[in-house]
């Protein structure tokens, strides 16, 4: 016990190895920021009944089919950097009227299927849309 206490007490706050570790930690942090944040590009979050079911980056053309019950569905399409609902078999199809968007915070809503698509990242001159 006594020797351990002495060792701790006598140890210097920093050794050469620490100086190596610090830049390493910084590098790891920078890497974490790069990997964990969604990147410079915008993306669309797809929520079904309040739950996040898919994230689609807007810089990759893609399609996501959301299956509501009884074979009903919405097709969410990312094309040319914008997201839209390209097909829906809900009753009103109002979600398909929404023009393809890349505007941050824009939301496309399909009420019958409780589906919400929200654009994140990127620019939006508006703080909210009413």
């Amino acid at each position, binding site marked *: 016990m006594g020797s351990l206490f002495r060792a701790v007490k006598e140890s210097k706050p*920093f050794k050469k190895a620490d100086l190596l570790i610090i830049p390493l930690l910084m590098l790891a*942090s920078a890497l974490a920021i790069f990997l*964990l944040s969604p990147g410079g590009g915008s993306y669309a979050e797809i929520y079904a009944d309040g739950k996040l079911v898919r994230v689609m980056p807007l810089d990759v053309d893609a399609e996501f089919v959301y299956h509501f019950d009884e074979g009903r569905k919405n097709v969410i399409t990312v094309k040319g950097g914008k997201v839209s609902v390209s097909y829906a078999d809900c009753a*009103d199809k109002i979600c398909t009227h*929404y*023009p393809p968007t890349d505007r941050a915070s824009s*939301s496309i809503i399909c009420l019958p299927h409780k589906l919400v698509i*929200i654009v994140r990242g990127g620019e939006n001159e508006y703080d909210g849309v*009413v």
Partner: protein
Amino acid sequence: MLKTLSSKIALPLCAAMFFFAFSACQVEDEGQFFLNSRLEIKFFGANREAERLCRQEITRFLEEFEQKASAHLEDSEVSKFNKAKAGERVQLSERVYKLFELSMEYYQKTGGAFNHCLYGLSKLWGFMESDGIYGIEELPSQQQVEQLLSYADPSLIELSDGAAVKFHDAVKVDFGAVAKGYALDVCGQIARSYGIKSALFNMAGNVYAIGYKDDGAKFSIGITDPRMIETGEEIFAGVRLADTSISVSGDYERYFLKGGIRYCHIIDPFTGWPVNTGNSVSGIISAIVISQNAAQADAFSTAVMVSGPEEGKRLLEQNGLCGIIITADKKYYVVGDVELFGVKNYERAEWEASFGR
């Protein structure tokens, strides 16, 4: 020297970077639905803990409020009132009683253009389906409409001591045109009680702004283009505002098409028909109202939508409100002092020119 420098700067810097890395990827659950609408909350301050607690309390309030005030839920107080017989006293909680009171006030102030007794007609026209699917197989007969219209009368309800009584079995209420605004007023009170100085609450056509943005500027609120399918634009224009609320009523979100005619969810309380169908020709496709009070903005946007531009303008001016009226011929009118910018695809109309009387 180098050592002290590293210990004083590098370690906190690392910690900050790690914190930033992980906070940047936090995903907030923004897809929540209340009162059949999506709620979006944006805080612009720096007090994360107060914001978290505030968000929790708001969620609790809205869940509870919906249970009591929704006409879609079997066991709500509103449904109990709707199912009650004439003369039966229906005891109400404080907030639902307040909805009855506020609605009566707006009914009177709008000369009946806002009416909370349209449940029967909304159902007849196929807008009371809780699954959000609107529409009907066959249009109702004029006789059916007129029969329900005679009970769409708020003076057939008496309020006293926290209870409501109706004078006829068929009197049924729906607070769809005021409940979201009222809920936002309460959300605002909750947020202010947590010391929040800058925030935006957005709930299906209603925005409530607390204070100014963090940089002291006004908020920029985009107004949805009511004919985005034709114009290809999401936004009609922007409005700059602070510490107030704005509400939009339009024919473009909850509607169905039949025989090429657009039947929207806003029922004209004078004719019993959806606005702009039958004898109800207001000509308005979107009505925007700005008020300190979100419940008032909500109710008046519906009332203006029903009333048409000229009468709508009079209603707003009489009550010291401002707003924007967009008509089917792609024109827009401004009432009062509105900081409007970036209008696209619509032409500004002047009052005198179009209503030269």
